[in-house]
Structures are given as C-alpha cells and as structure tokens.
C-alpha cells in the first residue's frame, strides 16, 4: 500500500554517499538501493519520512523533513500551533516490534 507521495521531502546527494548501505538497512519500505557503491532512491513513493536513513547517514548525504504520518498530530498542529501526538492513554501509534 502506498500513500500520497507528491510532497515527499526525501533528498539524496549521491556525491556525498560513501556506499555504506546503512540507508538500505534501516529503511522499512525498501526506498533505497545501492549499486556500484552509490545509493540511489529506488522507490520514492514508498517513503514515509520516518527519518531513519538521514539520521543514520554518517556522511550527511540524505536529508528529509521527518515526522509522524498521523492526522491527529497534524490537526492538533493546526488547532494549537504545536504538532503534538496524543501520547496519553489513547495513543494511536501501532504497538509493534
């Protein structure tokens, strides 16, 4: 399943890539692939902007405006000016892993 992908903020500067494959390892949606020791974005539409790749890219080749894809957070942001997830008793986060 894929979601609205028009505004996805993921950017990769291949020039700074060291080919360490960390992005391939941490991405839960298979967005990256490494060929000839350089990473490229293989499936951009699948990106959920979780930020794992950028945070684990030691050379800073990846940037993404990361966050959580949760409507309640965004609506709270519109209402109060601060994007806060519930966090309380009824957090919507999927209890995984």
């Amino acid at each position, binding site marked *: 399943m*894929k*979601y609205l*992908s028009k505004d996805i903020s993921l950017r990769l500067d291949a020039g700074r890539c060291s080919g360490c494959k960390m992005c391939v*390892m941490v991405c*839960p949606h298979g967005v990256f692939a490494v060929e000839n020791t350089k990473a490229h974005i293989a499936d951009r539409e699948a990106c959920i902007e979780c930020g794992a790749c950028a945070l684990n890219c030691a050379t800073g080749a990846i940037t993404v405006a990361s966050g959580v894809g949760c409507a309640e957070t965004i609506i709270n942001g519109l209402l109060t000016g601060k994007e806060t997830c519930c966090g309380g*008793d009824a*957090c919507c*986060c999927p*209890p*995984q892993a």
Partner: protein
Amino acid sequence: MRSDHQATALEPCGHVTAEWTIRNWLGALGVRLNLRRMHYRVTPGLYALGKPGPDAPVFVSANYKLSFDHLRQALVGLDGWILVLDTQGVNVWCAAGKGTFGTAELIGKIRECRLLERVTHRRLIVPQLGASGIAAHEVRKQSGFAVIYGPVYAANLPAFLQAKLHATPAMRRVHFRWYERLVVAPVEIALYRRELFLGGLALAILACLPTAGASWAMLGQRSGTVFLLWLVTSGLAIFLGPLLLPWLPTRAFSIKGASLGLALALCSLGLLGPDWTRLRSAAWVLLLSTAASYLLLNFTGSTTFTSPSGVRREVRLALPVQIVAGVVGLTAWTAAGFLPTW
C-alpha cells in the same frame, strides 16, 4: 519477573524468562483493547535473560511492556542481555519518532548499567524500527558500542541470530496485513467513543423535531432507531475501514472512508428501510460518509505507510470539506422534520 531493582553495583535490574505466562497473554489482550495501555510498563535498565555471560548478545528494547514481552518471547532458549530504554511506556517505533528511543537515552543507559564492564564484546542489537531515533555512528563514537540493526519484527530474531546477525531484505520490511490492521482498529473506538456516542444522541434528538403532534412512543421509536443505526454503522466503519483499506478507492484515507460511509449508509437505508423522507435519507448518507471519512483520516496515525507530508496535504484538503459536509448534513437532518414532503 522481578522488575523492582534495588540494584547493587553489577546486579541486573531483573532476571526474566522467555516464555510467556498467562499473565503476559492477558496483559497483551488488555493493551490491545486499550485498557490502561500507557501503564503497561517495564522498569528501564538491564535485564538478564536466562544465564548470560560476558559474551552474550545485548538486545535493546523500549519500556512498553508489549515491546519487551515480544522480544523475550522471540528469544526462547537463549541467554542474553536486554537493555530497556526509558521510552515512557511507548513502543519502539513511536518512541523513536518522538526521540525518546534515542541516541542520548541509549548512551545514557549504556553508562548507567555499566555495560562496558558486563560484556566483553562491543555490539548492540537494536530493533530496526528504532533507527528513526538512533544515529548508529554517534552511538559508536560516544560509547564504543556498534549498533547492529536487527529485523523489524522480533519474531525473526532467531533467524537473524542464526545468520550471524544478517537480516534478509524481507526481514527489513514493515508490513500491514489484515490482522495487523484489525488489531489497531479498536484504538479509534478509544479515541472517539465519546464523540460517536454524543453524535448519535444529537442525531436521535434532532430526528424528533418538531415534537408537535407526536406521541411519546413514536418519538422513542424514532430516536431509538436513529441512535442504534448510528452506533452500528459508525462502529462497522471503524472495523471495516482498516480491514478493507487496500481495496477502498484512491490513496487518500478521507476518500476511502467517505466511500465506505456511503456504502454503509446506502446499505442501512436499503436493508432496514426506515420510513424516512428523501431529505432525511440524503442527510443520513452525507453525515455517515463524513463521519467515516474523518474516522479513517485519523487512522493514518495507526498505519505503517503514511508520511507526514502526505497527511499534511490530505488534512488541508479534506478537513474543510468534512466540516462543510458535517454542517450541511446536520442542517438537512434537522430541516427534514420540518419539511415532511421533501
């Protein structure tokens, strides 16, 4: 399990077994049903699973008890250390997104629990979904420990360990299968039970207007039908939306939800055939579609594949439409009583 720790120097916080007891199963069921979910916690710190030696692997987890329990359940028959970070009772992925399952917390716990003295190797197995909070190269620089990202699902840990800490591409992917969608669906009930109940009550009362010339029995029957119909259809929307997610039209959750609401409204009108005027029926269709649209839009937070930029776009486009549709629907619903020939 001993989770209180009057820790002496090198005493672990507790010793745990891998096997789940009946208490663990009941607890897991409870949190899935949203009963005191944020209170289902483990004391942060280092735990010994079985009889780990200085060369035993170290697994990092969150202090949401279900995360911890899934981890130890996957490690049946193994000796190892479990380093539980303080994520304030939130699961690994969400806590990583919020930054509580993070680099600083991990480095802090490594020091607090004196991991350097307990194990001779310098490797930590961190769940892959924790990567959005942890910078592996920073952890290495500041603590000397190499972060090795394990599989997304704890159940794949035995295979990962057997393959000498190598995860297959499939183990690196998060999925959202039908039963996983159903498991998180009840969260919507916890989030919106009050609104749904009050909404039904409001519709039931408004359906009684005007009261002139109507008997109590008639009013009771009319409002009761509306109230029950509302609870059943909106309840169905909460479960069917997530279940049918891949097959509902378009990628936008608001449109998926609206289509489901439309179908449910038409079914309820067709099957039960309440003796409503055309205006009331149209208002019903509009209101139920809007409610289902809003409910499914809010389900984005429970999914594994929505991006914040996408949700931001969708909220900006859908929310104004939902508000207008709600107001129009309520007006028409109220007016229907006063316009019996429409």
